[in-house]
C-alpha cells in the first residue's frame, strides 16, 4: 500500500514523483497539503510565511487535533524560495527510537555553528499535512527507522486459548500413546519370554530365525505406535479448521452484525480464533471513534440562567443520515431568497452585502463539491468539518432572543450593536466564537494561503467601500439573474420552520426582518464557501465555533493579533487580540483579551470547567447592576451544568470581564515581566493569569456531546454483566475520558473513582499503595456485609490513570501492585497514553494476569494494541483501514461487539470446546478397542478390524456429525444469550473445556471402550469366531456408541443434525456391506468378504450391539440427567426458561 503512494522527491534540479519505498535518508521531500508524510522529515521550509506547518497526527497517537511544527530556527530558509541545492549543512540526529515525543539533533552550518532542533521540527511519517500548501523537509529517518514504524510491533501469531489448552491435551494423548505402546512392548516381551519353546504360530522372519524377545519387544513398540496412532487426533485439527470456517460463515452472515449505513458486514480476518470471542475477560477499548463517534455536537446551552435544549441536535446520525442531503439542500436553496430581500430593503450600497452577493453566486456551481466534501469527510480529508458538527440546528427560542436583542441594537446604532454590556446573549456567542484557538481554513490549502495572504489587505479594502463598490456592482447583475432562476425551486423547498415568511421579511417589523435577513445571508455565506472549515486543537472548540456560526456569529479569520468574525447582521468585526491565556490543566480555563474595534473597550472572555469559573465569579456585593438576579443566574446555571454532566455532556462555562484600560495596562506589565522571567516562568505566568481571571460575569454554559456511538452504554453494561472488565485507553485528556466514562456507563455515579496523575515515582508508589489499601479495606468491610445480605451492592471502583503515571506504574517494581489494583477495579481509564503504552498495557494484562484480552479500536494508533491482544477488533469506516488491517475481526460499530461476543463468542466457544472434547473421546474410545485386543493376541499388534474400515471410520463414518455439531449446535438461543449476559461467564471460566473435563472425557472413553470390547468378547469367547468376525460387531458397536454419545451432547436437533446423523449410519452400513461384498482377496490378510453379511444374518449381532451401546452410554446419560435435574447449570436453566418463554412469546 505504501509503496503505491507517490511523493515528490528531489532529484537534480527539481522535485520528482517517487514511490515511498524509494525515499532514502538525506533526500529532500516536498509534501503538499493533505498528503501523508512518507518518512520522518526535518522541517526546513513551508508555504506558510511564519514557517509553520500544521499536521494531523491521528494515525500516530490518535489525537485528531492539528499540531503545529516549525522550521528549524536559525535557518533562514523561509525568506526566499527554498533551494535544496544550496542546503549544504551537516545534519546529525540521534539513533532511531520509538519515542514519539522525543527527538533531537543539530544542523552544523558551514561556519561550524550548531543549530539544535527537536520534536517541534519533526514531521513524523504517517501524519498528514494540513492547512499548509506545501512543505519541504529533509529525510532523517526512512522506512523501518521511522518513529511510526518503530512503534509498530509487527503482528503476533495468535493462537486461540482453546487450541493452546487442546495442544496440551494432545500432548497428554501422546504421553498416553507412549504409555500404551510401552505396555504393548513390555507385554510382548513378557509374552515371548513366557513361551517355553518356539510355538507353531510364531512366524520366523524371512531368514527363518526369530528375533530375541527383547528385540521383538523393542520393535513392537513401534508397531504399536503405528497401530494406535489414531489416538493422536490429527483429524481433530482438520475438523477444527472446518468447524471454524463454518462458524465464521455464520458470523459473517449474521444480519444483526450488518451495518446499513456503510453496507458492511462483520469481517473475520483471522480464521483461527472465533472461539476466543467466547472467553474474553478484559476489553481494552479505544475511545475516539470506537466508543464515541469523534464528532462533537453542540447539544445544549444555558444563557443567563435559561436553558435552551437544542432538541433537534439530539437526533441520531442514523436517523439524520437520509435527511442530511435534503437538509443541506434546503438551507442552500433557501439562502438566495433572503439575500434578495435584503437587497430589496436597500442595502445595495453596503459593500459587505455586495460581497455576500458575490459569494451567494457560488453555490450553484459547487453543489457537487459540497456533497463531495460531506461524504469525503469521513475519509479524513477535512479535520473537523464533518457534516454533523456544522449541522447545529439553532434553538428557535434562543435564536429569537439573539436576533431580537441584536437586531434592536443594530437598529439603534449599526456599529455599536453587540458591544452593549447588558446584552449578554451576544456576549455569550461572541465568547463561543472567539474564546478559542480555532484556525479558519479551507480544505484547499492553496486557496487558504491566498486568502490568508490577502486578508489584511482585503480588509482594508473593505474598510473603504468605494473601491470595491464598483466591482461589486458590476457583478451584481449576473447574480441577480441567477437568483431569479432559482426562485421556483425555493418555493418548492420551503421549510416552514426555518424559512422566514416572505411577508414578514418584505414588510412587517423592520428589525426582525433585518435580523432574519442577515442571519440567512450569513448562512448563505457559510454555505457559499463550502470548503471553509474550522481547524481546532480540540474538537470541542470546533463544535462551539460551529454552534456560534449557527447563530450567525461566524468566525472568519484568526491571526495571533486579531480575530475577525461576522455578526448575525452581516457586519464583520475585527477584534484586536491583546492577549491569550492558553488553556492549562491546572487552571482548567482559557481566556482571550480583546479590544472591541468600535467601543475600544477591553473585554476578556473566559471559558473553562464549571467549578473553576464558578469560583471566580463576582460576588453579589461586587456586582452592581445585576444584584440578586446574578446570583440566580449562577445558581441556575450550576443546576444546568450538573444536569448536563449527568447526561454525559462535556460542560464548559463562559464568563466575561470588562477591563479598564488602566487595569489592563498594569496587568500587562506584570505579564511581560512574567514572560521575561527565566526561573519559574510557568508559575509566574499562571499567577498573572490568576490575577486577571477574577470577578468574572457569568455568561452561560454549554453542553457538548462527544456523541457516543449507537447503544454504547447498553453494550458496555451488557459486557460488564457478562463479567468482562472494560478498560478505556485513550490519548485524550483525563477530563474528557472521565466524562465519556460516565456517559458510556464505564463509571457509575456511585463508583469510587481513584485518579492517579503524577510525575513522581515515589508519589506514584504511595498512591498505588494507598489505593490498594483502601480497596482492600473496602473489600474486607464489604465481604462480611455481602455475606449477610446478598442484596447489598458491591462497591465498584474505577481507576483513572494518565499516561505518565501509567509509565511509572508499568515499571517492574510497581507493576505488581498496579495490576493488583487494576484487577479489583470495575473499570480502568487510561488517558494520554501512547500507542506503545496501549499495547504494553494489553500485553501486561494478558501475560501477567493470564486472562483473555480483547482490544478494539479504529485508528492507526490502536494497531499495536489490537495486535497485542488475544483478539483484536477493528472498527471499520471511521479513520482509515490500518486498524482493520491489523485486526482479527472488524465490525462496523461498537454495538456489534455485544452480539459478537455474547452470542457468537459463546456459541463458537461452546461448540468448538464440545467438539474438541468429543474428538478426543472418540479417538480414545475407538483406539482403545485395538489396545484391549492386544492383551489377547500376545501384544503382537494385530488389528481385529479391517484396516480400511479402520481408516474410513474416522474419515467418513464419524466425521461429519461432530463437524455439524461444532458448526451448528445451539445450546441457548441468541435472544436468551443477549438477554442474560451472565451466561457468557461460562466461557470465561473455561467451563466448556478444561483439563478436568478432558480427563473426565478420557475416563469415559476408557470405560466405553472397555464396554465395547468386553461385551462382544464375553459373548464370543470360546466360540469358533475368527478375527474379523469378532471385529465387525465391535466396530459397529463402537460406531453406534460414538453416534449416540454425540446425540446426548447435541442440544438442538435441526434438520441438518438429523440428516447428517442418519446419513452417517447409512454410509457406515452401505460402505461396509459393499466393501464386504466386493473385496474377496483385495486386502490381505483381513479379506472382509461376506463377513458383515454373515454377521447381520444372526440375531446375536443385534443383541450385542444394543446391549453394548446401552451399557456404554448409561453412566454418561444418567450423569447428564441427574446433573440437569439436581444441579442445573445456568445454561440448562436458561434453556428451561427459553422453553417456558416460548408459549409466552407466542401469546
Amino acid at each position: 500500500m505504501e509503496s503505491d503512494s507517490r511523493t515528490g522527491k528531489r532529484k537534480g534540479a527539481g522535485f520528482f514523483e517517487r514511490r515511498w519505498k524509494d525515499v532514502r535518508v538525506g533526500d529532500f521531500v516536498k509534501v503538499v497539503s493533505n498528503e501523508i508524510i512518507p518518512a520522518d522529515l526535518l522541517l526546513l521550509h513551508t508555504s506558510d510565511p511564519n514557517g509553520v506547518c500544521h499536521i494531523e497526527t491521528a494515525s500516530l497517537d490518535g489525537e485528531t487535533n492539528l499540531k503545529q511544527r516549525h522550521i528549524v530556527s536559525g535557518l533562514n530558509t523561509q525568506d526566499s524560495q527554498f533551494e535544496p541545492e544550496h542546503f549544504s549543512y551537516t545534519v546529525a540526529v540521534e539513533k532511531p527510537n520509538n519515542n514519539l515525543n522525543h527527538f533531537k539533533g543539530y544542523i552544523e552550518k558551514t561556519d561550524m555553528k550548531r543549530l539544535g532542533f527537536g520534536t517541534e521540527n519533526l514531521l513524523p511519517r504517517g501524519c498528514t499535512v494540513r492547512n499548509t500548501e506545501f512543505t519541504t523537509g529533509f529525510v532523517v529517518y526512512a522506512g523501518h527507522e521511522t518513529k511510526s514504524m518503530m512503534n509498530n510491533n509487527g503482528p503476533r501469531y495468535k493462537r486461540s486459548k482453546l487450541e493452546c489448552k487442546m495442544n496440551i491435551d494432545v500432548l497428554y494423548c501422546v504421553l498416553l500413546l507412549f504409555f500404551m505402546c510401552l505396555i504393548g512392548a513390555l507385554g510382548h516381551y513378557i509374552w515371548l519370554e513366557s513361551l517355553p519353546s518356539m510355538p507353531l504360530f510364531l512366524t520366523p522372519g524371512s531368514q527363518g530365525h526369530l528375533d530375541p524377545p527383547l528385540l521383538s519387544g523393542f520393535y513392537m513398540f513401534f508397531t504399536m505406535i503405528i497401530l494406535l496412532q489414531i489416538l493422536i487426533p490429527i483429524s481433530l485439527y482438520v475438523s477444527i479448521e472446518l468447524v471454524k470456517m463454518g462458524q465464521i460463515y455464520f458470523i459473517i452472515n449474521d444480519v444483526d452484525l450488518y451495518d446499513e449505513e456503510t453496507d458492511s458486514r462483520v469481517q473475520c480476518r483471522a480464521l483461527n480464533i472465533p472461539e476466543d470471542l467466547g472467553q474474553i475477560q478484559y476489553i481494552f477499548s479505544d475511545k475516539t471513534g470506537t466508543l464515541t463517534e469523534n464528532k462533537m455536537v453542540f447539544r445544549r446551552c444555558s444563557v443567563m440562567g435559561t436553558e435552551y435544549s437544542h432538541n433537534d441536535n439530539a437526533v441520531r446520525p442514523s436517523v439524520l443520515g437520509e435527511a442530511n442531503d435534503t437538509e443541506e439542500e434546503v438551507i442552500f436553496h433557501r439562502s438566495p431568497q433572503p439575500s434578495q430581500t435584503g437587497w430589496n430593503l436597500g442595502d445595495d450600497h453596503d459593500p459587505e452585502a455586495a460581497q455576500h452577493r458575490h459569494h451567494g453566486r457560488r453555490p450553484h456551481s459547487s453543489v457537487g463539491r459540497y456533497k463531495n466534501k460531506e461524504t469525503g469527510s469521513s475519509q479524513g480529508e477535512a479535520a473537523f468539518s464533518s457534516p454533523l458538527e456544522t449541522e447545529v440546528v439553532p434553538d428557535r427560542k434562543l435564536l429569537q432572543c439573539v436576533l431580537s436583542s441584536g437586531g434592536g441594537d443594530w437598529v439603534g446604532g449599526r456599529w455599536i450593536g453587540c458591544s452593549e454590556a447588558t446584552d449578554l446573549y451576544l456576549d455569550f456567542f461572541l465568547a463561543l466564537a472567539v474564546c478559542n484557538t480555532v484556525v479558519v481554513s479551507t480544505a484547499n490549502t492553496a486557496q487558504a494561503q491566498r486568502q490568508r495572504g490577502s486578508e489584511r489587505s482585503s480588509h482594508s479594502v473593505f474598510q473603504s467601500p468605494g473601491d470595491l463598490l464598483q466591482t461589486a456592482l458590476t457583478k451584481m447583475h449576473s447574480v441577480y439573474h441567477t437568483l431569479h432562476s432559482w426562485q421556483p425551486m425555493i418555493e418548492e423547498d420551503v421549510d416552514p420552520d426555518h424559512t422566514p415568511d416572505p411577508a414578514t421579511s418584505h414588510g412587517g417589523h423592520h428589525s426582525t426582518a433585518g435580523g432574519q435577513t442577515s442571519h440567512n445571508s450569513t448562512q448563505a455565506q457559510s454555505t457559499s464557501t463550502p470548503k471553509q472549515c474550522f481547524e481546532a486543537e480540540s474538537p470541542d472548540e470546533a463544535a462551539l465555533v460551529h454552534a456560534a456560526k449557527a447563530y450567525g456569529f461566524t468566525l472568519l479569520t484568526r491571526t495571533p493579533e486579531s480575530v475577525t468574525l461576522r455578526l448575525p447582521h452581516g457586519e464583520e468585526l475585527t477584534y484586536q487580540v491583546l492577549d491569550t491565556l492558553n488553556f492549562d490543566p491546572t487552571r482548567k480555563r482559557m481566556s482571550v483579551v480583546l479590544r472591541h474595534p468600535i467601543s475600544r473597550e477591553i473585554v476578556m472572555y473566559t471559558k473553562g470547567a464549571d467549578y473553576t469559573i464558578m469560583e471566580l465569579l463576582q460576588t453579589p456585593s461586587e456586582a452592581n447592576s445585576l444584584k440578586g438576579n446574578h446570583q440566580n443566574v449562577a445558581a441556575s446555571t450550576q443546576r444546568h451544568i450538573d444536569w448536563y454532566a449527568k447526561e454525559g455532556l462535556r460542560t464548559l462555562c463562559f464568563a466575561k470581564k470588562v477591563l479598564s484600560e488602566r487595569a489592563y495596562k498594569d496587568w500587562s506589565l506584570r505579564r511581560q515581566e512574567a514572560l521575561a522571567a527565566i526561573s519559574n516562568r510557568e508559575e509566574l505566568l499562571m499567577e498573572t493569569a490568576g490575577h486577571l481571571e477574577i470577578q468574572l460575569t457569568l455568561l452561560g454554559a454549554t453542553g457538548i456531546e462527544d456523541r457516543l456511538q449507537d447503544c454504547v452504554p447498553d453494550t458496555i453494561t451488557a459486557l460488564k454483566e457478562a463479567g468482562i472488565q472494560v478498560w478505556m485507553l485513550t490519548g485524550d485528556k483525563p477530563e474528557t475520558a472521565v466524562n465519556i466514562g460516565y456517559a458510556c456507563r464505564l463509571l457509575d455515579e456511585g463508583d469510587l473513582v481513584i485518579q492517579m496523575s503524577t510525575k513522581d515515582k515515589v508519589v506514584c508508589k504511595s498512591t498505588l499503595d494507598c489505593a490498594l489499601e483502601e480497596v482492600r479495606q473496602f473489600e474486607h468491610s464489604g465481604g462480611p456485609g455481602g455475606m449477610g445480605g446478598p442484596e447489598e451492592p458491591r462497591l465498584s471502583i474505577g481507576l483513572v490513570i494518565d499516561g505518565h503515571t501509567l509509565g511509572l506504574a508499568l515499571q517492574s517494581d510497581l507493576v505488581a501492585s498496579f495490576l493488583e489494583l487494576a484487577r479489583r477495579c470495575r473499570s480502568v481509564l487510561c488517558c494520554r497514553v501512547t500507542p506503545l503504552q496501549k499495547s504494553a498495557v494489553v500485553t501486561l494484562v494478558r501475560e501477567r494476569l493470564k486472562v483473555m484480552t480483547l482490544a478494539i479500536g479504529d485508528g492507526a494508533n490502536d494497531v499495536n494494541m489490537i495486535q497485542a491482544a488475544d483478539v483484536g477488533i477493528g472498527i471499520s469506516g471511521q479513520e482509515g483501514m490500518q486498524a482493520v488491517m491489523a485486526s482479527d475481526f472488524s465490525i462496523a460499530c461498537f454495538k456489534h461487539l455485544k452480539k459478537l461476543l455474547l452470542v457468537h463468542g459463546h456459541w463458537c466457544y461452546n461448540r468448538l470446546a464440545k467438539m474438541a472434547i468429543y474428538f478426543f473421546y472418540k479417538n480414545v474410545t475407538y483406539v482403545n478397542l485395538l489396545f484391549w485386543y492386544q492383551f489377547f493376541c500376545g501384544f503382537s499388534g494385530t488389528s481385529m478390524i479391517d484396516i480400511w474400515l479402520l481408516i474410513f471410520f474416522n474419515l467418513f463414518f464419524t466425521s461429519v456429525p461432530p463437524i455439524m455439531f461444532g458448526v451448528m449446535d445451539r445450546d441457548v438461543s441468541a435472544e436468551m444469550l443477549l438477554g442474560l449476559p451472565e451466561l457468557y461467564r461460562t466461557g470465561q471460566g473455561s467451563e466448556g473445556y478444561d483439563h478436568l473435563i478432558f480427563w473426565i472425557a478420557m475416563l469415559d472413553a476408557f470405560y466405553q471402550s472397555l464396554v465395547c470390547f468386553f461385551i462382544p468378547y464375553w459373548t464370543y469367547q470360546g466360540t469358533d469366531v475368527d478375527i474379523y468376525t469378532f471385529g465387525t460387531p465391535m466396530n459397529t458397536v463402537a460406531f453406534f456408541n460414538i453416534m449416540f454419545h454425540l446425540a446426548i451432547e447435541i442440544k438442538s436437533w435441526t434438520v441438518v443434525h438429523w440428516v447428517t446423523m442418519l446419513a452417517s449410519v447409512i454410509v457406515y452400513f452401505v460402505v461396509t456391506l459393499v466393501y464386504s461384498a466386493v473385496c474377496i482377496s483385495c486386502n490381505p490378510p483381513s479379506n472382509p468378504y461376506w463377513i458383515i453379511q454373515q454377521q447381520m444374518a444372526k440375531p446375536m449381532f443385534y443383541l450385542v450391539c444394543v446391549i453394548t451401546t446401552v451399557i456404554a452410554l448409561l453412566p454418561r446419560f444418567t450423569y447428564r440427567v441427574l446433573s440437569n435435574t439436581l444441579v442445573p447449570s445456568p445454561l440448562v436453566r436458561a434453556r428451561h426458561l427459553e422453553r417456558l418463554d416460548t408459549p409466552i412469546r407466542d401469546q
Partner: protein
Amino acid sequence: MMASSYNAKEEDGHVAVAGGGTIKNKKPDNTAFKQQRLPAWQPILTAGTVLPAFFVIGLIFIPIGIGLYVTSNNIKEFEIDYTGTDISSPCFNCSQSFSWNSTRPCICVLPFTLEQPFESKVYMYYGLSNFYQNHRRYVKSRDDSQLNGDINSLKNPTKECEPYARNEKVPIAPCGAIANSMFNDTLDLYYIDPNGTRIQIPLTKTGIAWQSDMNVKFRNPGSNTNLTAAFQGTSKPINWHKPVYELDTNPQNNGFINEDFIVWMRTAALPTFRKLYRIIDKKNHMTPTLPRGNYTLEVTYNYPVRSFEGKKRVILSTISWMGGKNPFLGIAYITVGSVCFFLGVVLLIIHHKYGSRNNSADIPN
C-alpha cells in the same frame, strides 16, 4: 480495503444511482439457516423427560435376557481334553513322543460318558487353547490369491508367506504359516452300546465351512478333477504329511476347497478357540443324535501343542439360534434391564422431589 474504497467512490459520484436499486448490497440473507434460526428439537435431559426411557429399557431387556438365558441353558455341550499332559491320560505317550516327521501315527483312545442325550444335530469341534492364531505375523502369513486359484500366485507365492513360501526354491502350496500349522489330528467317535459293541458314529465332513469361503474365496487352480496336475511344480507345506491335493478323496472337498483346510484358514480371534470339525446329523426323529451312554474318542495324535503349553479338546455341542452355549448375554440383559428399572425408580423419586423446581421459572430474570 478495496471494497470499501470502491463504495466510497460510488457514493461520491452517483448518489442518485446508488439509490436507484441496482446496488451491490452486502446485507446477508435473512434466512433461517444463515441466521441460525432453523426450527430445532431441543430436548433437555431431565429426570422427568427420560423416565419412560429407563422403564422401557428395563421392561424390554429383562424378557430378552431371560429368553437368552433359557436358550443357552437348553444347549447341551460336552467337552473332553485329550492333550495328554497328565501321565494318566491315554494320550500321554503320544504327546511326549512327538515329531512332525514321524511317519507312524500315534493313536490314543479316550472313553467318555454322555449323561444326557443330545437330541438335535450335534456339532463336533476341536478346541485349542493358548494357540495364538491371531498373532499379527501369523495372520498375515498367507496368500489369498493363491488360495483363490490364481496360477501366478501358485508359482510365486507372496512374500507375506515367508519363510513358508518356498521349499528349496519350489513354491509351497498352500504357502504361509497358517497353512503350515494346520491342525492334523484325526478324530473318530465310537458309541459303545450297552452290549459292548463299538459303533462308529458317521461324521459329516462337509458343510463345516462358510458357504462364501467355499464358493468364492477358495478355489483350486485349474479344475477340481485333476488336482495333481494342477499342483504340479509345487511343494507341500513343510509340516504336512501329504500334499494339498491328497487331503480328501472327494474332488469337491479336496485341494484348497477342502473344508477342514478352509476352517483352519479362518484364523481364530482369541487364543482359546474351537473350530468346527464334523457334524453329526440326526438320523431320524425317534432317536437322539447322541444317546446317553459310553463313547470312545479315537485320536490320531499328530498335532503338537507342548511347545506353547496348549491344550487340545474335543467339544460336542448342539446349537441354537444364538449359537453355542453362552449364558453371558442373557445375564447381561437381565442385569442391565434391572439396573435401568432401578434407575427409573430412582429418577421417579428425584423427579417428584426436584422435578417441579425446574418447571417453575426460578431463574432470576
